[in-house]
């Protein structure tokens, strides 16, 4: 696998992470890995890079969690920490935002963030949830809330078949004291032509304002260079999220 991050930028990431470790401040890391195989199963692309683009939704989610505040107010700079769902609507209410409805109701209903359809675990064929791919060239923006041009589910031109998201994999590196969560999704090109992927994103199915089923994007990465998936080929996209724990 080729590591694409420029050396100078990588040094800055490592300095940041070293300081976080020293000062005991949690610094989440996120990597994006892409592997493309052709119809014969041969790997035609395999690269890893930093995911550069936590978006405002992710920040507002963290604010709800760690700062102990509701997801209220307006979208944008300031004290508002609402969530903007993929349709473009701003959802604001007197509750915190969460990746999944996390409580038990009076009837005993419960939600598991690792169930299909919850948090990042997208169902088969669902291109509005989980890891998704697109062909849009819109530059990354902190205020992104949807893909620039998402690939639809299907087998027509520029359409992909989105496979059921894999169960996240949790791992621990005792040497670096790093906890890692890997979210993976396979997407197949069942069309008759090559698809050039220019953007990858990850969309949560969460809860805010007392309601669940809110689809909101938390990261979007524009690929440079783009990645081609040949007909009958497959792309495996992995978001690898990790946090270094202090000793």
């Amino acid at each position, binding site marked *: 696998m080729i590591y694409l991050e420029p050396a100078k930028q990588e040094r*800055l*990431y490592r*300095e*940041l992470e070293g*300081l*976080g470790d020293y*000062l*005991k*401040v*949690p*610094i*989440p890391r996120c990597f994006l890995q892409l592997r493309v195989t052709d119809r014969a199963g041969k790997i035609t692309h395999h690269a890893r890079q930093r995911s*550069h*683009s*936590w978006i*405002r939704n*992710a*920040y507002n*989610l*963290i*604010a*709800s*969690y*760690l*700062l*102990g*505040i*509701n997801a209220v107010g307006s979208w944008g*700079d*300031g*004290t508002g*920490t609402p969530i903007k769902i993929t349709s473009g609507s701003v959802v604001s209410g*007197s*509750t*915190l935002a*969460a*990746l*999944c409805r*996390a*409580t*038990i*109701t009076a009837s005993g209903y*419960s*939600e*598991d*963030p*690792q169930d299909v359809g919850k*948090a990042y675990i997208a169902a088969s064929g669902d291109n509005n949830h989980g890891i998704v791919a697109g062909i849009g060239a819109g530059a990354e923006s*902190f205020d992104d809330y949807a893909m620039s041009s998402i690939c639809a589910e299907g087998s027509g031109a520029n359409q992909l078949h989105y496979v059921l998201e894999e169960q*996240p994999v*949790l791992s*621990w590196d*005792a040497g670096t004291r790093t*906890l890692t*969560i890997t979210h993976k999704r396979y997407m197949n090109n069942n069309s008759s032509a090559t698809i050039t992927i220019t953007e990858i994103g990850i969309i*949560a199915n969460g*809860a805010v304002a007392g309601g669940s089923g809110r689809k909101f994007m938390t990261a979007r990465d524009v690929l440079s260079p783009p990645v081609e998936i040949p007909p009958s080929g497959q792309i495996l996209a992995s978001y690898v999220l990790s*946090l270094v*724990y202090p*000793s």
Partner: protein
Amino acid sequence: MEPVYIEPVERERKYQRLAELGTRLKIPVTQAFLTLRVLDRNGQVIHHTKQRSHSWTRNAYQMLTTGIGGMRNSGTFADGSLATRNTAGSVISNVYLANTGGVSSNFNVNSEAIGKAYRGPNGDNVSGIVIGTGDTPESFNDFALAAALAEGTGAGQVNYMAGEPVVKSWDAGTRTLSVEHKRYINNNSPGTITIKEIGLIANGSQGTSLRALMSRDVLGTPVDVPASGQILAIYTISLIYPS
């Protein structure tokens, strides 16, 4: 009167570099400060300091990891696992996400209400900002104060006021969202109480009610609260947004 900032200069530089890199690389960096102000019975300020809060605990890391990673809070309260530990010492492990917002039906909980998240109710010493007389060194695995002060007016007891409404602010220059969590605590006992530790306890949920210590700071220099005096403790938690 502004508080005296007591963070060592060299360490402060590191915090500031961390914030700068977080903004530049678009990585969410949190900051936490602890401000303490003590008044005597005449209302005179006899102590007023501000420092970095150094001690997010494992519970805070677990909540962050599961909160943005979409994982269950399952397993053990140890390296490589994602459970949380409540202030009673019980490890809470199940399929739900942990959160600071509290238990209710339909996830309809106001995190800023008294009794939720970091706003402890009046007289409650197991949620919100709490103080103690223990000086056991800070540990990443802390789940309770070493010796939390009980609610009351007897020797070594204090009256915990309800946590104040949260105060949010936005600094456009540093692109920082800050939230102040404040609590007044009165010493209605007959003697001086020497405070050595401060903690921040979330009243949240993880499928069931969860009181989780998120941060514990042992004070470098203990702080005396005289009889009939008052301490105001403020945790200011910030998140630096990228441009």
